[in-house]
């Protein structure tokens, strides 16, 4: 059951950007389609649960042009950028099982895959990555946690859009790789505390499930 707060959050959640869709949302068969998740989450969960190609097509249409635009801003040529887009989308397909909507929103998960890919292309050593928390077993979805995660990401996006130009430029420059760690100011002007508590809850949920798996 959704509590009142969650219902209000759903009502207030900004409408996701209009996307060209090949398949109406209701045709993407997933247990979560009726829950009121964003389109991106619904598609991603359909790819994760049943390798749904139509849903993957929707993800491609939404993310490929954004990925390409972003990667090109970091100085890659158009051809290189499309190469990265291609590899990232294929990784999204194959690693969909590892997507955990309780800890990350789709854009943030795909962003991270893109970053790994870009660094692997640019450096021969590849990028050192933290140990992946194993997540092979399908766990129960906590809809209120997932929607709260999405809500936080939407809040973050609008906060980013509303930053003072100087501050926003600093954040963008940092993520385009134009600032070294000593030039980065941790004070971004973004409200990051609430999203952190959300992610922490998602992480605790996973830790709890992993523990139960080890001691049935």
């Amino acid at each position, binding site marked *: 059951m959704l509590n009142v707060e969650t219902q209000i959050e759903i009502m207030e959640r900004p409408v996701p950007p209009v996307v060209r869709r090949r398949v109406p949302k209701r045709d993407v068969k997933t247990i979560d389609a009726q829950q009121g998740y964003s389109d991106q989450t619904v598609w991603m969960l359909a790819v994760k649960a049943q390798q749904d190609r139509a849903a993957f097509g929707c993800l491609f249409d939404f993310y490929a042009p954004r990925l390409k635009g972003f990667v090109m801003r970091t100085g890659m040529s158009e051809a290189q950028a499309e190469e990265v887009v291609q590899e990232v989308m294929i990784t999204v397909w194959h690693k969909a099982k590892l997507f955990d909507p309780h800890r990350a929103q789709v854009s943030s998960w795909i962003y991270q895959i893109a970053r790994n890919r870009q660094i692997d292309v640019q450096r021969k050593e590849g990028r050192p990555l933290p*140990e992946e928390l194993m997540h092979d077993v399908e766990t129960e979805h906590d809809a209120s946690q997932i929607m709260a995660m999405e809500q936080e990401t939407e809040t973050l996006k609008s906060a980013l859009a509303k930053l003072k130009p100087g501050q926003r430029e600093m954040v963008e420059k940092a993520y385009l790789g134009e600032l070294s760690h000593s030039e980065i100011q941790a004070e971004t002007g973004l409200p990051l505390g609430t999203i952190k508590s959300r992610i922490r809850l998602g992480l605790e949920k996973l830790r709890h499930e992993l523990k139960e798996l080890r001691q049935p």
Partner: protein
Amino acid sequence: MTAIKHHISEPLLMAYAAGSLEHHYALVVAAHVSMCDECRAQLAVYESVGGAVMDGTNVAPISVDLKDSVFARLEAPQVEKKRQRGFGVFPAPVMEALKGKPPRWKSLGFGVRQSILSDTKEGSVRLLYIPGGQEVPDHSHEGIELTLVLQGAFRDETGRFGVGDLEIADDDLEHAPIAEEGAACICLAATGAPLRFKSWMPRLFQPIFRI
């Protein structure tokens, strides 16, 4: 395990999330995050910011055949690169740097050993093995020095560092860490340039030992 007290600084986590952190520091960050859920969550926060920046970027039109070529490759067998898991005191990214093999320790004298994982002109990262009670030579360094404790503990002028703790030393800090009595202290240490020891070993030998 005792709680981790010394964490990665926010600029370092943000630089790691942005992909701009140099390889030798990135390895230490990835190792600490493997051991620390606090920083794992904070890193996810900065990845969310990255996702938001990416979503807010102007879209670039995609070539007409790119989607088809992606779909055509979905069925192709995936050569999954085998990722190392953590082993013993070494978290997964360290095992990855060791290529799954045990460290090849080289003696530095006085029981201190090191195993270099990566050494470029940008900086270096190595494992250090310091017997309990042994002092690590007084040294200064160029750029920041990151030291992550994997086993045992050490103390210096700034405090005590136990398993999982990360010391971030600026270039102006000249410190003399001492391993705590008991089990040897094993650390993962990264620096922006070759370490310069002030005492303990003549400078002359430094190129040989690469310290």
